């Protein structure tokens, strides 16, 4: 016999058993009667000597059972029945937990996809980003990005290293593709040999780029991304070998990469080989990202040492031209600081995501506390039922298990609902698309997320089931039989658990609300920062690039840009037009260098701080609304006449000459330019890297001295952003040359918002979590107070009958609610004080212990709690003593 047939022949087994036992009893009774005892007495004695018939039957049956399984099924059936019976309770509980699980699963799927999953490359753990630090060169190198590689560094590293299998450099850029329908600006990844080999993702069709593709003036090749191949070529496999006009030059298509392939986190349309001309390379030119695959078994520390060994070789092998000291870079103190590619891709978003995960986790705890409270109330109502079960011989473990099965089932059902919610949540998140969230496209619900949800469901079910179960199903149930009589007053001890849960809820809600409050304050503080431009909404931007093949001489590039500006200015509604190497906060690779003032003495070997170099057209500052503190903007005549004039930012003027007005008429030059440039204007400080960053000292060179082929045009117009306006803008540009594509068409407002994206993302997430916590906390307080009122109905009735004023009753209940809230708030302030410090990195213009936020949130919580108590308090006040006492 196997257990399955046993399971099904159970009915027969029980019939046999009960018949057998009945026969046993009958025989005994007959015997006793025969001895002359009355039948009644005999029945009694037979039963007493036999013991508990039910238990004997139960224990006999158990022998044949797969006991844990069957008990479990019984508990499940019982639990389901209880849940069905209390449908209101079940629905509220289910929704609370489902929303909690849904929110947690959504956030976890983000954490999992962004932070936990390895990058999408074979053996991704071997991939490193070749980051190096250069504390001696501030400006060029910062803590986050470090010092980029120069082309000469690439050659030294690639040829001399011992630690890497493959090593390469790359840089992202844009290119114009022409010859197919409309001219189009596409995103390119310009890669050296070694990048694709290191990443090791095979092409979908065709081949990788290799060393032979990076020979200058050799055959020109290109690889397409899967998306671009589909979009422009309809996934035609015969594209291999065809030519694509990239920046007006034909390039042979040699391969297509598979879908989802990225370099680091950069998405692109084309991969173009970098073709360095070795003969012309110098030491400088630190603009490339390095990527490498470690040899197996080599640690990051060993690779760092290997790089450090190669740095002197690099300085010995190359030069910056005659008369320069190649060992100048020793003063920069360049130190290799490799990090896993994954870390590079994730960047600083880890802090934000873990903070969000933690807050959402807190919401889950609050939801569990709420459910635990609901369960407590429900079990209280079932005291008699439980006590009877205990009296009938149910072990208390069995009762606890029954209650846990019930709560875990609720948890699992909520988990299923929660997965549905999370699916919606992820879709919502993807459509909101916080632009600066890395690996956004990889976010999905995978097996690990599913496992997390199951774990969370079980865990929450156990958590909110265990508290009431341990509280009430303990070995002291006999007491319960008496104390549930309706005349007994409720013991203080019974309230303690519930109160404690409410404290916890209020405290956690306070922590979340304080965090949200701090983010709101941060956001407000950021909005008040004067960014260095005005009315961003009416500032239309676009980027136009004039390739070498279209206009060869640099001087003519500037003229063409000026002509474009003229045509744009002619569009109705345009007040002014200007252009610059880049707009603030656009995030294009900035140029940093040293300057020398004519009236200052510089000793040899002294390290000069690096200044931000920008190139701006005449009229640019008038267009952006950037204030001239002193002096004036240059004119086109000065630009075309190559007049040596320059503008500086206010902070640079103060640093060098004490005041903005003192700067006018002074002269300065950069390292290469021998000519002295006269300062003709001082401009207000501009938050180039986002409003939360400090304003860099900036030098504004008028017009592009070197060829500046890619510039951002800025148009001041009330019509900015409208479709009709944009089509007129395109027509104006194309009327000059139809091969010029417009890229990054957006308003300054969008650029500004994007620079705040990290803060607003955190704010929204914390706001949602805080609101959920507040609502759950309020439900918790309301539940406890209204339950307390219903329990004390009789007592309140007596008070009223004895002459208590209704106002006194109202105050008494409110006071109790306020006590709950105040204790919770006090605990919460303590916890928040410790926790908000973790937010410091995200805050701006407000300390982590901002008293205003703390006070406001505390006041909010207490007042909302009082409102929540008012409803049951009113009910208490309106108790009719006649009715309440009539129950007796």
């Amino acid at each position, binding site marked *: 016999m196997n257990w399955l047939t046993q399971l099904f022949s159970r009915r027969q087994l029980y019939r*046999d*058993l009960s*018949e*057998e*036992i009945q*026969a*046993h009893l*009958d*025989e*005994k009774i*007959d015997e006793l009667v025969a001895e002359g005892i009355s039948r009644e007495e005999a029945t009694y004695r037979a039963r*007493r*000597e*036999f*013991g*508990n*018939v039910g*238990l*004997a*039957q139960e*224990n*006999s*049956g*158990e*022998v*044949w059972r797969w006991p844990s399984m069957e008990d479990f099924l019984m508990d499940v059936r019982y639990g389901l029945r209880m849940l069905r019976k209390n449908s209101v309770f079940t629905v509220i509980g289910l929704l609370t937990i489902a929303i909690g699980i849904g929110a947690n699963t959504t956030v976890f799927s983000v954490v999992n996809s962004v932070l936990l999953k390895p990058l999408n490359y074979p053996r991704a753990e071997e991939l490193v980003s070749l980051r190096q630090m250069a504390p001696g060169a501030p400006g060029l190198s910062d803590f986050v990005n470090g010092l980029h590689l120069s082309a000469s560094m690439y050659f030294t590293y690639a040829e001399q290293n011992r630690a890497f299998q493959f090593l390469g450099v790359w840089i992202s850029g844009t290119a114009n593709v022409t010859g197919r329908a409309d001219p189009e600006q596409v995103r390119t990844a310009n890669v050296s040999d070694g990048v694709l080999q290191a990443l090791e993702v095979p092409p979908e069709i065709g081949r990788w780029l290799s060393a032979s593709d990076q020979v200058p003036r050799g055959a020109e090749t290109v690889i397409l991304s899967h998306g671009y191949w589909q979009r422009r070529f309809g996934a035609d496999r015969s594209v291999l070998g065809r030519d694509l006009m990239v920046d007006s030059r034909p390039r042979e298509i040699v391969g297509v990469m598979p879908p989802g392939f990225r370099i680091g986190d950069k998405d692109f349309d084309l991969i173009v080989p970098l073709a360095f001309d070795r003969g012309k390379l110098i030491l400088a030119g630190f603009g490339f990202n390095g990527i490498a695959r470690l040899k197996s078994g080599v640690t990051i520390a060993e690779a760092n040492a290997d790089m450090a060994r190669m740095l002197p070789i690099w300085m010995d092998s190359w030069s910056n031209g005659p008369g320069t000291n190649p060992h100048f870079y020793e003063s920069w103190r360049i130190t290799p600081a490799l990090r896993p590619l994954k870390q590079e891709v994730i960047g600083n978003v880890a802090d934000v995501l873990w903070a969000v995960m933690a807050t959402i986790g807190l919401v889950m705890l609050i939801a569990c506390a709420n459910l635990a409270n609901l369960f407590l109330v429900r079990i209280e109502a079932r005291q008699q039922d439980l006590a009877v079960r205990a*009296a009938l*011989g149910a072990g208390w473990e069995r009762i606890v298990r029954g209650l846990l099965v019930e709560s875990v089932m609720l948890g699992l059902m909520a988990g299923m609902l929660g997965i549905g919610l999370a699916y919606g949540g992820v879709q919502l998140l993807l459509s909101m698309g916080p632009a600066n969230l890395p690996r956004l496209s990889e976010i999905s619900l995978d097996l690990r997320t599913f496992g997390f949800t199951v774990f969370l469901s079980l865990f929450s079910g156990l958590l909110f089931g265990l508290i009431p179960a341990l509280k009430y199903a303990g070995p002291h149930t006999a007491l319960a039989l008496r104390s549930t009589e309706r005349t007994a007053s409720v013991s203080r001890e019974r309230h303690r658990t519930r109160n404690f849960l409410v404290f916890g809820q209020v405290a956690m809600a306070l922590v979340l609300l304080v965090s949200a409050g701090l983010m709101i304050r941060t956001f407000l503080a950021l909005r008040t920062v004067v960014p260095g431009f005005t009315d961003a909404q009416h500032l239309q931007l676009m980027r136009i690039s004039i390739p070498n093949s279209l206009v060869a001489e640099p001087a003519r590039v500037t003229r063409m840009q000026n002509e474009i500006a003229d045509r744009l200015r002619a569009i109705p509604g345009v007040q002014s037009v200007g252009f610059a190497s880049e707009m603030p906060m656009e995030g294009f690779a900035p140029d940093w260098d040293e300057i020398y003032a004519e009236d200052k003495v510089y000793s040899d070997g002294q390290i000069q701080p690096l200044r931000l170099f920008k190139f701006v057209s005449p009229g640019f500052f008038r267009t952006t609304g950037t204030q001239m503190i002193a002096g004036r903007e240059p004119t086109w005549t000065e630009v075309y006449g190559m007049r040596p004039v320059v503008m500086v930012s206010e902070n640079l003027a103060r640093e060098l000459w004490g005041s903005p007005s003192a700067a006018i008429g002074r002269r300065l030059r950069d390292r290469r330019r021998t000519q002295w440039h006269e300062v003709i204007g001082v401009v207000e400080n501009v938050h180039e890297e986002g409003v939360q960053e400090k304003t860099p000292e900036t030098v504004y060179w008028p017009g592009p001295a070197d060829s500046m082929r890619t510039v951002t045009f800025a148009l001041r117009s009330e019509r900015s952003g409208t479709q009709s306006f944009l089509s007129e803008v395109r027509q104006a540009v194309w009327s000059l040359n139809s091969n010029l594509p417009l890229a990054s068409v957006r308003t300054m407002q969008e650029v500004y918002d994007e620079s705040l994206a990290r803060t607003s993302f955190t704010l929204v997430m914390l706001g949602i979590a805080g609101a959920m916590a507040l609502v759950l906390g309020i439900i918790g307080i309301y539940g406890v107070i209204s339950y307390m009122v219903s329990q004390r109905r009789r007592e309140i009735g007596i008070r009223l009958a004895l002459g208590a004023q209704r106002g006194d009753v109202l105050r008494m209940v409110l006071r109790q609610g306020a006590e709950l809230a105040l204790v919770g708030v006090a605990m919460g302030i303590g916890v928040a004080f410790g926790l908000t410090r973790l937010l410091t990195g995200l805050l701006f213009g407000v300390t982590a212990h901002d008293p205003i936020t703390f006070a406001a949130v505390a006041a909010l919580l207490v007042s909302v709690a009082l409102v929540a108590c008012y409803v049951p308090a009113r009910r208490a006040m309106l108790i009719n003593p006649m009715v309440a006492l009539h129950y007796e």
Partner: protein
Amino acid sequence: MKKTSQRDLFPGALEMMILRMLKRQPLHGYALVQHIKRTSQDLLQIEEGSLYPALQRLLKEELVKAEWGVSSTNRRVRIYTLTTAGAKHLEREVSSFERMLEGITRVLAPGES
């Protein structure tokens, strides 16, 4: 609820006694209880109800088998018979029990002085 006051019976003792009784002759439940009580001269207090789970355990391990029959008082009862496996099991149990008893006795004996 009545507690099972069976500190005196170690696990398996009841089963051993049942097997011993059945070795003599097949019996039904009530008769088994009566036999054990009588043979032990009421020294052993057995809760009658506990007999049935024990019988089920023996049935499951196929040490006894059961058949419906008619008792001497003309009732439909289940009559239990010892199987060969049950007889062997009983032998083993009895000899190990005797060893244990002897051990306990030896330990207890000098303690009386």
